[in-house]
């Protein structure tokens, strides 16, 4: 059946902010869906609170609501737009849960909105553990033995039945949130207690442990005609016990015979039919006992998932796009395969390569967190690499991670005859962490037999042997008298990087590369074609390998190569992908052939539809240079854009230029001027601008001297960092010593920067364009939290609320002076701080910043597109009237311009310390947020309320507020608390805070801190845990140890009670609560604001 003719408009729900377990893969899937639906002539109405997404670009939908994904808000949108249908399966668990809520509350029925691509009963059969178990058994499959529990009593009884260890899984959560492995009753009470709360149905499942089994996933699709295809099989290298999002995974599965694979496929197909997935994709996870082959079905996701995004990139089969088409009436055989164009989508991709995914973690941001990998997902991003065999794909993926020591160091070995060493290595093999793969190599290199490594790690011996082979080749490279061409070819075929080979040969990497090129050892590029070469591919989606034949076709048009941003991490995420995607759009419109290089499978940039050519490659100098060489051989290349993908490509610019590559836009010299402290100081001095006093230290003594010269508190951090890694505010020499001791990588090459910390300063962020002649200020943002909280974690507002025209003019002048002084060509981001009416320059980033998408959406001007065009020689004057407005800029917005608020989303609930406590959830100079939301409305309180709701901090309009603030903030607290009492809130405070309030005539109940409570008395913590408060305000002091309020914040975080940790945020929240009390949120599409 072709497209349904009774559908005219469809509401699509996005996935909201990037959080662990739900990242930009849903921007990829949602963007595909929106494109498909619009191209089919449907009116698309989109709701997504995440401004950094491509899907929320105004041209992706007919009506784009950057509004909170909240059932009430969506009801308002439905009431206004009256869509015929709602497509909920492409926005992750967030969208699916919202759709279920709308169904259950009768909203969909009330407004006659049909759920398409999903069936509520099917979703429940898929996600409800007990129902799913029944489904599996009804089709002859097996589930792990398990017990469903709705209370702690159930849990304890169940545990007695099943025995320890036990897996605990809450129903209806994403990314395995709240699940874990319990070895004893204490573990069980903690994990199951949280799980009962996290599950929207207060339900958890206890399950027999299948730890150490082989783990697999199948990605399936079904159409309305009941055709089912398996798009991809994925095998986890890390066996059961590690969340699949945190596992190294491989596609296709490599260690199953056909009988076993087909059995898994049969079960999967029977399950998707029995569950009744209406149309679209689903993901089923299996465990296989390595000793007997017994197959257990673990779970299913009846929607497009993170794994489906990976499967799409791994196979070239666009699951989300096809799912959208199926939802509006097509069947699989009616949809052409984009890659071959001649064959239909009703087939199963065949791969003639191996895709390896490795997760990217951010434990360095949460030093207190337990780095053990469990069934709760903790990674913040991932990379994928394609190779013609597992080993080369693994090595490529490892170098794609861009972390120090992410590549194997083949030279290290340990002495396993020493029993202590052996025990230590064995223990590390048994304990899944982000580095376990390195321990595996170390053990194998040191002579541990594969069977022993398997016995400790349960990693399939086949993978272990592959890693051992890598080591053997590395050893041959290291041990050969001379590096013959044959050996070099073998090393490159095996996947070793130039860096690794050079290290093994004690050579300089550049020299090695020169030798390699002289010997003519160059990679070729193969094509991802869905069919293992059976049909010709029309889509140039390439990966490198060292073989005979390259498939890069010649081209006539001039190409621009755009370097992406690599894996998502804290500080560098979807915002940079947004800018890269915009660059491809703008350059394509300008007549260039666009070439994307990136290794992040979650992104829109790595959709083969985005750029004209896609190279799925690591962003290292070696890999980028080879792509450049291949494309230069294919046709004219205008140059490489390094300034839109964040710090990763920026760091390559100088080497690329030195190697003769044309770097477009901002030149490496300008990058140095902005990033090098000394040179930047000169730029500021010339411009008459001021930076906070600072110095550079390589030892503790030097640091103390500097700190005493400029005065405490000081902000200390390593040089050249992204996202504030390793930053801290220290208040005295004692703290400074602690910092210097923990900053392990300090050296003369890597000094520590010591800056005067400006207390009570207003932080200001600017994104601007410069073409060498003229500056265009894209937007000026005022931070809500005071300086000292990382700009990525601070809420900010655009246009600025409280800055006067005089200050704005100084900001404009300062921006222009820095633009001219550094000589950037394209985007420039500057952070200023205003303290005691002095404007300080904190730092300048000569590239697209994290706030570019927010500013672009808040002002309606697409800065990244403009930057890409400036990079190829256009001017700001020339872009006026097209990409840029006819006149004016983003710093001169009229009073009726909507107010946009950006709020950060933080992952504290994901992380626990080794003893099971929540990690501290205060904000600081180190960035910890994973994502952001935007609230947009006609005034600040309304916009802030939306931003908070979008960030899942649902501000209360009545109830009880707990406040506890440090002394220095008590004065500032009085007014907002007074307003809260006026609005009818009950105030509860700790003794000190209550006393201050009482003197101001504000009644507050006093409550004991947890260590003050007497026997039988309820402490703050008890009240928080039993949800006795609707809002918790805990502002830790500057000088005093912040640990004081830690327990309070931890309890609020774990109990998911709205928590504010700054007085500024409280003031903003109070104004928002006031607006919420007087009227309900109204909704407005971006297109209406324009």
């Amino acid at each position, binding site marked *: 059946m072709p497209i349904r003719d009774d559908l005219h408009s469809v509401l699509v729900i996005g996935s909201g902010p990037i959080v662990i377990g739900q990242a930009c893969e849903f921007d990829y899937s949602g963007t595909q869906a929106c494109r498909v639906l619009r191209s089919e002539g449907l009116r698309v109405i989109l709701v997504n609170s995440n401004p950094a997404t491509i899907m929320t670009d105004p041209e992706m939908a007919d009506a784009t609501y950057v509004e909170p994904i909240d059932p009430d808000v969506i009801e308002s949108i439905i009431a206004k737009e009256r869509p015929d249908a709602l497509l909920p399966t492409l926005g992750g668990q967030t969208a699916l849960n919202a759709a279920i809520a709308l169904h259950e509350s009768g909203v969909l029925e009330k407004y006659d909105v049909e759920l398409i691509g999903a069936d509520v009963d099917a979703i429940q059969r898929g996600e409800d553990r007990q129902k799913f178990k029944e489904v599996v058994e009804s089709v002859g499959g097996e589930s792990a033995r398990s017990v469903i529990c709705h209370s702690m009593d159930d849990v304890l009884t169940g545990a007695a039945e099943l025995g320890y260890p036990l897996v605990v899984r809450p129903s209806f959560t994403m990314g395995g949130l709240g699940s874990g492995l319990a070895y004893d009753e204490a573990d069980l009470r903690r994990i199951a207690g949280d799980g009962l709360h996290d599950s929207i149905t207060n339900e958890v499942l206890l399950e027999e442990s299948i730890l150490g089994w082989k783990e697999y996933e199948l990605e399936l699709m079904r159409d309305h*005609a009941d*055709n089912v*295809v*398996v798009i991809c099989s994925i095998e986890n290298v890390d066996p059961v016990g590690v969340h699949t999002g945190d596992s190294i995974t491989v596609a*296709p599965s*490599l*260690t*199953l*015979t*056909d*009988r076993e*694979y*087909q059995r898994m*496929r*049969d079960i999967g*197909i029977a399950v998707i039919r029995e569950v009744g997935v209406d149309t679209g994709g689903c993901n089923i996870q299996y465990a296989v006992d*390595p*000793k*007997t*082959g017994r197959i257990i079905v673990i779970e299913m996701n009846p929607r497009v998932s993170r794994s489906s995004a990976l499967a799409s990139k791994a196979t070239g089969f666009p699951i989300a796009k096809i799912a959208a088409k199926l939802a509006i009436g097509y*069947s*699989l*055989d009616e949809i052409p395969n984009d890659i071959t164009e*001649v*064959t*239909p989508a*009703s*087939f*199963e*991709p*065949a*791969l*003639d*390569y*191996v895709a390896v995914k490795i997760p990217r973690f951010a434990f360095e941001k949460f030093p207190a967190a337990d780095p053990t990998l469990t069934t709760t997902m903790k990674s913040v991003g991932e990379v994928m690499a394609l190779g*013609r*065999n*597992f080993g080369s794909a693994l090595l490529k993926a490892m170098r794609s991670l861009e972390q120090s020591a992410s590549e194997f160091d083949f030279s290290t070995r340990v002495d396993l005859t020493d029993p202590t060493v052996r025990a230590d290595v064995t223990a590390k093999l048994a304990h899944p962490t982000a580095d376990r793969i390195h321990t595996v190599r170390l053990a194998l290199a040191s002579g541990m037999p*594969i069977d022993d490594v398997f016995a400790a790690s349960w990693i*399939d*011996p*086949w993978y*272990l*042997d592959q890693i051992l*082979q890598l080591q*053997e*080749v590395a050893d*041959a490279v290291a041990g050969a008298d001379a590096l013959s061409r044959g050996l070099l070819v*073998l090393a490159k075929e*095996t996947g070793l990087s130039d860096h690794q080979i050079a290290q093994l040969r004690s050579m300089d990497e550049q020299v090695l590369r020169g030798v390699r090129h002289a010997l003519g050892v160059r990679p070729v590029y*193969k094509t991802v074609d869905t*069919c*293992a*070469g*059976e*049909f*010709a591919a029309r889509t140039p989606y390439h990966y490198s390998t060292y*073989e*005979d*034949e390259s498939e890069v076709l010649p081209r006539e048009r001039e190409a621009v190569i755009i370097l992406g941003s690599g894996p998502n991490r804290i500080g560098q995420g979807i915002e940079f992908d947004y800018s890269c995607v915009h660059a491809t759009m703008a350059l394509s419109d300008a007549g260039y052939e666009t070439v994307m290089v990136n290794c992040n499978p979650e992104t829109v940039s790595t959709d083969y539809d985005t750029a004209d050519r896609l190279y799925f490659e690591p962003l290292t100098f070696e890999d980028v240079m080879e792509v450049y060489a291949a494309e230069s051989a294919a046709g004219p290349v205008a140059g490489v854009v390094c300034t839109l993908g964040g710090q990763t490509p920026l760091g390559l610019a100088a080497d690329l230029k030195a190697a003769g590559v044309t770097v477009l836009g901002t030149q490496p010299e300008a990058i140095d001027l902005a990033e090098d402290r000394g040179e930047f100081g000169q730029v500021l001095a010339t411009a008459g601008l001021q930076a906070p006093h600072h110095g550079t230290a390589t030892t503790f003594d030097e640091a103390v001297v500097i700190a005493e010269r400029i005065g405490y508190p000081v902000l200390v951090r390593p040089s050249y960092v992204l996202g504030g890694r390793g930053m801290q505010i220290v208040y005295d020499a004692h703290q400074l010593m602690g910092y210097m001791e923990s900053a392990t990588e300090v050296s003369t090459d890597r000094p520590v920067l010591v800056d005067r910390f400006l207390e009570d300063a207003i932080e200001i962020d600017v994104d601007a364009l410069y073409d060498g002649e003229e500056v265009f200020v894209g937007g000026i943002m005022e931070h809500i939290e005071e300086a000292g909280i990382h700009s990525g974690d601070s809420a900010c507002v655009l246009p600025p609320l409280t800055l006067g025209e005089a200050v704005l003019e100084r900001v404009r002048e300062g921006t222009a002076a820095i633009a001219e002084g550094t000589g950037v060509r394209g985007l420039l981001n500057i952070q200023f701080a205003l303290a005691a009416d002095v404007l300080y320059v904190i730092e300048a980033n000569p590239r697209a910043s994290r706030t570019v998408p927010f500013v672009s959406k808040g002002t309606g001007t697409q800065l990244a597109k403009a930057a890409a065009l400036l990079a190829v020689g256009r001017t700001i004057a020339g872009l006026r009237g097209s990409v840029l407005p006819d006149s004016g800029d983003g710093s001169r917005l009229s009073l009726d311009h909507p107010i946009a608020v950006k709020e950060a989303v933080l992952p504290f609930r994901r992380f626990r310390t080794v003893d099971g406590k929540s990690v501290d959830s205060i904000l600081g100079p180190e960035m910890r947020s994973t994502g952001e939301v935007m609230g947009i409305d006609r005034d600040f309180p309304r916009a802030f309320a939306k931003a908070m709701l979008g960030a899942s901090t649902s501000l209360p309009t009545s109830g009880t507020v707990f406040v506890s603030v440090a002394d220095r903030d008590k004065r500032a607290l009085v007014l907002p608390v007074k307003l809260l009492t006026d609005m009818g809130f009950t105030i509860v405070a700790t003794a000190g805070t209550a006393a201050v309030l009482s003197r101001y005539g504000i009644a507050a109940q006093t409550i004991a801190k947890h260590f003050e409570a007497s026997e039988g008395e309820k402490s703050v913590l008890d009240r928080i845990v039993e949800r006795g408060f609707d809002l918790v305000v805990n502002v830790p002091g500057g000088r005093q140890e912040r640990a004081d309020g830690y327990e309070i914040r931890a309890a609020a975080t774990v109990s998911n009670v709205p928590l504010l940790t700054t007085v500024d945020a409280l003031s903003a929240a109070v104004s928002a609560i006031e607006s919420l009390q007087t009227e309900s949120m109204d909704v407005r599409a971006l297109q209406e604001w324009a």
Partner: protein
Amino acid sequence: MSLLSPTPAVLVLEDGRAFRGRAYGSTGRTVGEAVFTTGMTGYQETLTDPSFHGQIVVQTAPHIGNTGVNDEDDESGGYWVSGYVVRDPSRRVSNWRATEGLEERLIRHGIVGISGIDTRALTRHLRDRGAMRAGIFSGDDAALGTDAQIEAVRSARPMAGARLVDEVTTGQPYTVEAVGEKRFTVVAYDLGIKSATPEQLAARGIEVRVVPAGTPFAEVSALKPDGVFFSNGPGDPAAADHEVEVIRRVLRAGIPFFGICFGNQLLGRALGFGTYKLTFGHRGANQPVLDVASGAVEITSQNHGFAVEAPIGDPVTAPQEEFGRVEVSHIGLNDRVVEGLRCLDVPAFSVQFHPESAAGPHDSRGLFDRFADMMADRPASTRA
């Protein structure tokens, strides 16, 4: 054999293109028709599938041998391929059922192979220029001059016109007992039958009397079967006149007939249709086929280099008019090749793909039920 000190090998195509790699399996030389298969699992089944007799099989999946070989997954008593081309052979076996490594098994069966070549380049070459003769020369033979190697390749037997069934068929008839209560007896012509086929029939209460390719119809009819089955097999269907004649007599006798793969081509010929050689054939486990009657798409296992030339669309009268109307029941969705025939006036049908799979998806196993239903529905008047 090791990556570091490999035994040289070369694969030479009849058009002169050569790929240098490492010896795999037995060393020596072999010639055959080079074909590629895109299946990602099931190399053991592939190697033991008699339909690959006379062919040098290229595996597009890069890692081969990972799960070793076991005692259960052989599809016949032999390893039939003429040569084997893989990119990355596994030296470590990982599977609970494995009893031996693949390379040891290949050596025992004298299969000459090559590894470490750009199998994708080879595949694309075969795709663009068609399946062609090739030779693998390893060990001392790798050092033969290119001209001598090409000469050897060009002197190999071409696939078009080749009659190969006699080389793979069973020497003696044998019986596969019905599982459970016996419902029917079927005579199965072994033209290169895979063991999964009698297993699937037997699982439906069918006693399978497997007979050699040359068995005359009289012997079949003496067994008073409820149905006759023609299996898959190697070679050109144009060179199987004897089998075609047997099928015609089966149809005339009103005995329900089911054919798979070669059996489909032979039914086509029996009905008077022609057959032709595909450029590079269909080999893999991901081939979408439309069941015209139900509209369902099935993902099928396929292994064929020849196809039936019959009109897609409304039923037509068979060129051999005595058999009445016939329709194309299954269509390959990738290229609209005829993938199945159904007679409307005689109880006969066949499919070009492999419903018994092994290796491959199980989507089409219902066809064995269809055969059983056909036998159950057979009017008593036509029974012998």
